[in-house]
Structure formats: structure tokens, C-alpha cells
């Protein structure tokens, strides 16, 4: 994650060195050119195109008129979009923190040199190998009050047991969080376990000599050492939050009612089902702004400010 500063060739350098540099770097630059072009044209180009369309009245096909901020005022008067925004916040916070905590605990558990470590590792990582669609359908069956957990416990002789979060408007979003954590915790575990294995054994010995309890070492010594791994895991999980779509579609289809709608589903529905490209792109633009405003302070703190401080 360290930045490499490239110093510009000084003017006084002999001509031969400059030519040599160009000659050695030319192939590399040429090799990078196609990727750079793709990024510029496809990513940046489509991004600008999306933003432009959000200021139009496009319906089924894109058209380039100008309606100002009309789509945005519609968007913020739309309860479905507001619910979506609220849901993505709830999901994002709980999902990331849940995955980190559970992943860390699992990693610590496996780090105790338990027997059958590779088996546990596989079992915990396995959910991540499944697509969100499979995850969603499996959890939908498991949490369905008439088929899954509730029926099972009731059939075992507890007729008053109730667990109907999936069909309860107020709780349904948390079932999505549960399924998401089940899916993502294994990956977090794998990343953090790699970090734990990298902790210097001498640190442990030193702590043991000083008589520090194990849990204290994990929290005060190991956890700070794991910072880069935690950052990596958080970034990976955060991308999953922004693009949350298939899990919801497979599990609740945004319901009951609009209780589990998310922004990505709002965008997809309006672009492709409701022939409302303008409103869909406006929602996509808002998503972009939200992501950028979360990322910008972090990028600033991580790259720009630290570079300035180091001079």
C-alpha cells in the first residue's frame, strides 16, 4: 500500500540517460495503454454518460434534453428510494462490523492450532464460494416461517416459538444482514488468519514472560498489527455493500412491501423494467456521490496527507 514516488529526470542529466530511460519505459507504457484507454473510455466515459442522462427526461431510450434537477427532486420525494438509502446504511454498518467481529473470532479460534484446522478453514470459507443467489434462496427457505427454522422448532415441541423476521416488515432487513454475514465472514477470517500467522512468535513469548493474559495480547498487541488486513477486508466488504442486489432479489425481492429495497435494485428496476432511465441514472449518480464522499476522506488521509507530511 506504500506509494512509490517517481522522481522526474533532472534537466542536467546527460542526453543518453534520458534516451535510455525512454527506451526502457516505452514498452511498459505501450503495454499499459490499452488498459488505460479502456478505463478512460469505458469506466470514466460511461460514468459521465450516466451523470449526463440523469439530467434528462429519458424513458426507454436515452435522449439528450435538459430538465435540470427535476429527476433528483423526484428521487428524494420517492419513499422507496429513501427506504433503500436507509436500508443500505443499516446493512453496511451491521454487515461490515459483523463480518469483522465474527471473522476475527473465527480466525483466533483456528489460530489456537486446533485439530482438523484445514477442515474448519474449508467449512468457514465455503459460503464465500457460493453465489449470493444461492445464499439468498437457501436462507429464504431456512427462515421461511412455514418451512424452515420456525416450523422445525415448533415441530420439536415448542408450539409458541416464533421467528418470522423474513416476513416481518420491521425485521426483514436484518435477515439480509444475517445471510450477508454468513456469506462474508469466512473471507474475513481467511484474511485475518493470514495476518495472525504473520505475527512474530517472539511477541507472544515476551507477553507470556510478562504474564499478560492471552485475550489482552490479542486486543492490545495483535489487533493493531492486523490493521492492514482489517483495512483490506473492510474495503472488500464495502464493495459488496454498494453492489448489494442479487442477495435481496433472491431472498426477499425487496419485500415485504418495500422493507428490504436497496439502491442498486432501485436503479436496475427503473432502468430495465420501468423504462425510466432518467430516474435510474439519477439514483446511480447519488450512489456514486455517496461512495466518493465516503472514500475521499480516507484517500486523503491515507495518501495525500501522509505524503505531504513525509515531504
Amino acid at each position, binding site marked *: 500500500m506504500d506509494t512509490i514516488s517517481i522522481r522526474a529526470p533532472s534537466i542536467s542529466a546527460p542526453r543518453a540517460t534520458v534516451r535510455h530511460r525512454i527506451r526502457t519505459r516505452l514498452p511498459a507504457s505501450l503495454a499499459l495503454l490499452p488498459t488505460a484507454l479502456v478505463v478512460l473510455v469505458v469506466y470514466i466515459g460511461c460514468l459521465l454518460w450516466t451523470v449526463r442522462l440523469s439530467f434528462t*427526461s429519458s*424513458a*426507454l*431510450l436515452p435522449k439528450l434534453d435538459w430538465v435540470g434537477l427535476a429527476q433528483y427532486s*423526484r428521487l428524494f*420525494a420517492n*419513499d*422507496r428510494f429513501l427506504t433503500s438509502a436507509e436500508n443500505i446504511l443499516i446493512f453496511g454498518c451491521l454487515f461490515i462490523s459483523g463480518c469483522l467481529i465474527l471473522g476475527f473470532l473465527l480466525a483466533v479460534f483456528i489460530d489456537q492450532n486446533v485439530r482438523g484446522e484445514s477442515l474448519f478453514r474449508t467449512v468457514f470459507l465455503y459460503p464465500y464460494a457460493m453465489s449470493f443467489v444461492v445464499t439468498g434462496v437457501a436462507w*429464504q427457505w431456512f427462515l*421461511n*416461517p*412455514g*418451512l424452515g427454522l420456525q416450523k422445525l422448532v415448533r415441530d420439536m415441541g415448542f408450539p409458541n416459538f416464533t421467528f*418470522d423476521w*423474513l*416476513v416481518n*416488515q420491521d425485521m*426483514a432487513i436484518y435477515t439480509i444482514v444475517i445471510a450477508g454475514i454468513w456469506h462474508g465472514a469466512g473471507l474475513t477470517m481467511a484474511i485475518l488468519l493470514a495476518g495472525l500467522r504473520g505475527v512474530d512468535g517472539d511477541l507472544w513469548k515476551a507477553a507470556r514472560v510478562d504474564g499478560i493474559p492471552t485475550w489482552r495480547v490479542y486486543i492490545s498487541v495483535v489487533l493493531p498489527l492486523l490493521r492492514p488486513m482489517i483495512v483490506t477486508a473492510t474495503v472488500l466488504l464495502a464493495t459488496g455493500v454498494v453492489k448489494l442486489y442479487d442477495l435481496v432479489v433472491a*431472498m*426477499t*425481492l*425487496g*419485500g*415485504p*412491501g*418495500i*422493507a428490504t429495497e436497496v439502491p442498486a435494485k432501485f436503479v436496475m*428496476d*427503473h432502468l*430495465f*423494467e*420501468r*423504462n*425510466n432511465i432518467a430516474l435510474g441514472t439519477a439514483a446511480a449518480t447519488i450512489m456514486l456521490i455517496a461512495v466518493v464522499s465516503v472514500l475521499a476522506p480516507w484517500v486523503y488521509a491515507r495518501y495525500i496527507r501522509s505524503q505531504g507530511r513525509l515531504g
Partner: protein
Amino acid sequence: MRLKTRVSAYTLSCALIWSSGALAQQQKAEVLHWWTSAGESAAVKVFADQFTKAGGTWVDNAIAGGVNARAAGINRMVGGNPPTMLQFNTGKQFDELVTNDLLRDVDKQAQAGKWRDIMPKSIVEASVRNGKFYAVPVNIHGQNWLFYNTKVFADAGLEPPKTFPELIATGEKLKAKGIIPIALGGQPTWEHNLFRAVLVGNGGADLFRKFYGSRDQQAVKSPKFKETVELFGKLRGLVDPGSPGRNWNDATALVITNKAAMHFNGDWAKGEFIAAGQTAGKEYGCTLVGDGSSGKLVIGGDVFVFPASKDKAALAVQDKLIEVLLDPASQLEFNKKKGSIPVRLDVDVSSMDACAERSHAVLRDPSNQVEAMELLSTPNFSGAIQDAVTQYWNNPNMSADAFVEKVIGAMRDAS
């Protein structure tokens, strides 16, 4: 001179050989549709076989899910590489393709085939833009059927209801016997479909048209509409708690397996009963709930549209496809498998099942035909209403007045 003749003769023969080769290749028709379930693909195979028999090559391009298929088709048309024909639902989905001159008008074929005389008026209107046919309807689906389990009703000593107040009374009695009165696929689409069945049944055809078609705010504020919305709200109590998120075919299965008594759905649900080995009029019945008369049938269906082309050979292939689609024999076979009824009302349906015959009989009287939502309303407005309906349905504390407010907001705002 001689050389010239020889050269031109040579060129001519070359051109002939080339063009006949091209013709053979151009007899190929690429068809984009979303009929992927077992019954649906059996149905579309009827068209494919007929087209092959007529000397063409049918290239089947089935994409699962109507939304995905339409998006793929529109992208290809805009990109200049359209399929030979593609499927839409009868209605407004292809409006903008017409205004952007992307579709071929097939009015010549329509006049030759007298489509305006043999098809229901609302289906004709939904396929005509600026006085010309731009789409070929292939079937009629009734969307507001009540399917019921005859055994459950016989065991309970009850009759299938004819009106919605009757339905609620019957439902309460069934519920007391431990039977799910109404099996509902708890997804916004099906909740909305149930709402439309109540609206047309209790509110009437006129209110239905004012609501989806002219977006009449006065009609929405009327006591009749409020009564209908409250009636719809009362149906919540007749649905089992496992309904949210359920697929429509799982809901149909509840009726098939005697767990539920009634199920509102379009006639595509017949495919599920048929697959379970049940016969219309025996294990299950179908009826229309309304004012107690023969009932109003909300009709939509599927059409094929033909991308505009300047290539004569391509146009000839499209002509052949149109002939196949509306041929009486293929209409009958296709619709038997699809669960719908032929779009040509002049086809003899006595070989079809009891529900199809009922549907055909109801539609004979034009005053019983009600255009489906897709024919009256834009996808955007329908979507906004769907959001409001699913919120109302899933929140028992929401009042009918609050729902009316949301609807008026959507009427003002949605394009």
C-alpha cells in the same frame, strides 16, 4: 461487344448464384423471446416447427426473464444488429421503438388478413400506432381468474364466490376449518395483480380504465374506490403468514395440493395444474369474481414486433413468420400449450379445456373485455402504483386514505 456480353453474363450468373445463396441464408429467422419454462418452450416450438415446415430455419434465442429479454432486444436494435422478430407484451412496452422508427409497420398484412375484424378491439388498439399495425398479437391471456380447488369447496359445503363481499365471507369459513383461503405469491407483482382483480371486479371496468388509463384523480377520490381499497385490505387476513416472498407457482401448488382453496392469477397458472395431472372443471375450476354476472376479463398477452429493414430478403422472411404466427392451426396448438386463448376469435376452441372455452365465451361480448394494465399504462406508472400497492398490502396499519394519497402522488408525478 462480345466480350462485354460475356462479362456481363458472367457477372449476372455470379450475382444470381450469390443472391440465391444469400436467399437461402436469409430464410433464417432469429427469434428473441423469453418463453423458457417447460410449457412455454413447448408452445413456441409449435411456431418453430411450422416455420421449418414452410422452408425456413428458426434460430431460437430464448432469454430467461421478460425484462432481460427486452433489454437485450432493444440494445441490439439500437446497436443496428436486430433479430428478425422479438417478443413484447401487448401494450405500451414498444411505444418508443415506434416513435424512433425502429419497427416495421405490418399494416399491409393486417389488412390482407382482416386482423381488425377477427381480433378483440382492445388487442387491436394496443398493436396499432398512428393507424398502423406495428405488432402481431399471438395470444390472449386473462389476468384476473380465480382458480379454486373443487374438492376443498365440496368438503366444506361451500360454493365458489361470485362477488368480493361473498369471497370474504366464504374465506372466513374456510379459515375456520384450517384451510388457507387465498394462496398468494407475496411478491409485489402478484400483490399488484390481486389488487387489479379486486379493482376490476368490485370497482368495475370503468373505474379500472380511469385508474390506469386516464389517471383520473376524481375517480380515485370516489367512495367506490375507497370501498374497493378497503375490501382489498380485508383480504390480508385470508392469506397465510408464509406468503411474503413466495413465488406464484408455489402459491398455485398450495391449491393443487388441497392446502389452499383459492388463487387469483392469470391463465398461465393452468400450466402448473396441467403439469400436476389435473383437469380444468374436475380437480380445479376457474371463475371470475365481480358483480355476480358472467364477469369482466382483463386481457393482455404477447406480441411479436419486427425490426425495420431495407433488405428485401429479410422482409420476405418476416412475412413468412407473420403467416405462421396467425395460421389458425398453429394458433390453436400454440395456445393450448401456452394456457392462453387464440388471438383470432374465429378459431374453433371446442378442443380446448373448460377454462379456455369459458374465456372465449366471455370475450365474445366486447363489453366484457377490459384492457390489461400493460395496455393502458406506461411501465413507469404501473411501477409506481406497484410500489404503493405493496406498501399498503404489507402494512395493515396503513389506511385506505393514505393509499389514495400515494396513488394521487404517483398520478401527478410518474411519466
